[in-house]
């Protein structure tokens, strides 16, 4: 349909793109997530971002920083999404989003370590808590359903969820506190 789409038979390019994209998707997803109100919004935007990344992958220089490049493109997508949706939704003000994006990128290496540390902290909570969190973070459920099935009121469930997030964040910070600053 368009000449900007790279040749789809270009196996090497495609493979290279897939490798880079799958490697950095968690970082780009987290970046987008910090700028929009919900995980679903982040999913939608990421889907559009991935298309643009593939289109423009031919222009991306080998050896460049894929993550920084992808976050740059994602940032534009987020800003245009906010312009479209912002009037009807409870979203952050654009200047605040810009601030958050800026700080996000400055602290990305710390944030990446935090995401990595989550894996071990996630392993430290009880199996029951892990199971319930996993359900709460599934895409095809409502919080009401998860709350009901766990025998809690919706308010009680949110309280539990907030406590878990706080505990995990504390655990992550504890894990990283042992690291000297570099």
């Amino acid at each position, binding site marked *: 349909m368009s000449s900007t789409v790279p040749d789809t*038979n270009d196996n090497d390019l495609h493979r290279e793109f897939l490798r880079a994209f799958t490697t950095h998707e968690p970082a780009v997803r987290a970046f987008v997530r910090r700028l929009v109100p919900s995980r679903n919004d982040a999913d939608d935007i990421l889907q559009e971002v991935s*298309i643009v990344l593939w289109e423009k992958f031919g222009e991306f220089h080998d050896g460049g920083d894929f993550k920084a490049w992808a976050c740059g493109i994602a940032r534009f997508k987020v800003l245009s999404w906010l312009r479209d949706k912002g009037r009807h939704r409870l979203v952050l003000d654009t200047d605040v989003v810009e601030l958050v994006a800026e700080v996000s990128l400055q602290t990305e290496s710390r944030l990446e370590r*935090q995401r990595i540390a989550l894996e071990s902290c996630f392993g430290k909570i009880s199996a029951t808590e892990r199971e319930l969190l996993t359900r709460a973070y599934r895409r095809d459920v409502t919080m009401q359903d998860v709350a009901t099935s766990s025998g809690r009121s919706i308010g009680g469930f949110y309280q539990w969820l907030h406590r878990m997030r706080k505990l995990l964040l504390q655990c992550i910070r504890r894990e990283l506190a042992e690291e000297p600053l570099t």
Partner: protein
Amino acid sequence: MTNDFNFGLVQRYVDGTASAKDMLQLNSQLRDSPEMRQEFIELLNLDSALSIVCEPVNEEEVTAFEVKRPSLTQVDHSEADSPPADSSNRLLSRSLFRLAAVAACLTLLIGGTWWWHASQQVWATVQNRIGFGGLKEGIELRGELHEIDAGVVQLVTAYGAEIVIEAPAKFQFESADRLKLTRGRLSASVPPAATGFTVMTPSGEAVDLGTRFGVDVRGIGPAEIHVFEGEVIAKASGASASDNLYEGDAVRMDQGASASRELRSSAFIQSAEMSELTPHVTSDQRRRAEEYVTQLRRDPALIAMLDFESDQLPPGVFHIAQGRWPRSRAPEFIDVGDHMRLDAGGDREWPQLTLAAWVRLDQVGAPYQSLLHTDGWESTPGQVHWMVTRHTTMRLALAGNTLAPDAEELEGYPDSRTPVLPKQGRWVHLATVYDATARTVRFYLNGDFDKETRQAIAHPARLGAAQIGNWDRHDRKLSGRVDELFIFGRTLSDTEIQTLYEAGNPYR
């Protein structure tokens, strides 16, 4: 952490339950308070990471997937006949779906170059890993600090040097040819293109001149350099001169000086071993090993079983290193004099005895490596000495026993026929079965029966106070690691030894 009231505000925003009033407040606080911004960013970062952790991607399938479906055009058709997507490849399928949708939805986006941060160079890429943590295959390493507390990670630098680092480790690339190692055990295989690759440690550095070498940094202690092949320059911090090391050389760098050491080649996991280790360790092999060990613990004839996993380790002088599995532990004996004390089975005689252990030993110059020596050799017949000889064969000697006239051994004690230590460092399973009634000693290497030696005089075995590692003489030390040591007061059959080996084998 920011006070709970504000933190609750961010949580409501994350949940999508914030009110219009909440949003006003949140906007104003994020604008004004850097602390609040940081809290906000970290909580949303956690939220995103959680959504990924809760929906894991299977790395093996990523590779398989790429090989099977090389082009986009195939992706469209593959939807119908692909196997049912399980949760593990859902993420990837989604990525591909988005890619396939390129033709349908095209939004042009221009610019953004001002935004592009000064591109950071990639110094190395993760090729392979064993164990947990975030250093997954394909991750690119730049100048950030990495810390792994379990497992092993294999990297390839931008110039093609292959690096294997074993936990616990802390490291950071300064460039593609300079790596700072503040803790951990590293092996490097450096092709000509990467010559000059340098490992910096707190007590000195190793500069490669085209070679394979190892660097060991244990906590705050002095670092060691071991050269397996080729040439390396070793320079202790603060020293004016450097040393050229060649194949078989090793040094310990301490307070500005280098002291010569015995080569410990098996202390390091090298890249060839990585590929043998990975498949088994990522499967449920470890669980099977643990199940079998649990079963053996109930054996009525079990005298002692040491897996070194509990906090209550036997007394002695030794180090703790990683065992055969990520996050498992094994005692490591390094210096002359390192040992571990045991005391089991001293209350009676044992007409039948089986000894078995996983070991990872260096081929050292000392005549004997002492696996298990009981204390009273001179005083009581039947005292047990289990060791590896200078010929790297296994020996089981009992005080007062003699060989049968037809025995082929020349040194007076039952020895295995096959050398039990591989040239390259590897875990090997050693076992020996003694039967005083049948007057036989049987040897096993990696589950396989090696040979039987007959005895003329065969006393029942005596145990009690004993030592792993350096024994009371100068000629017996131990250099390496020991894992999962069993002592049974009965003979184990060929099949049982084979099963014991297979259950605990960390290799493919």
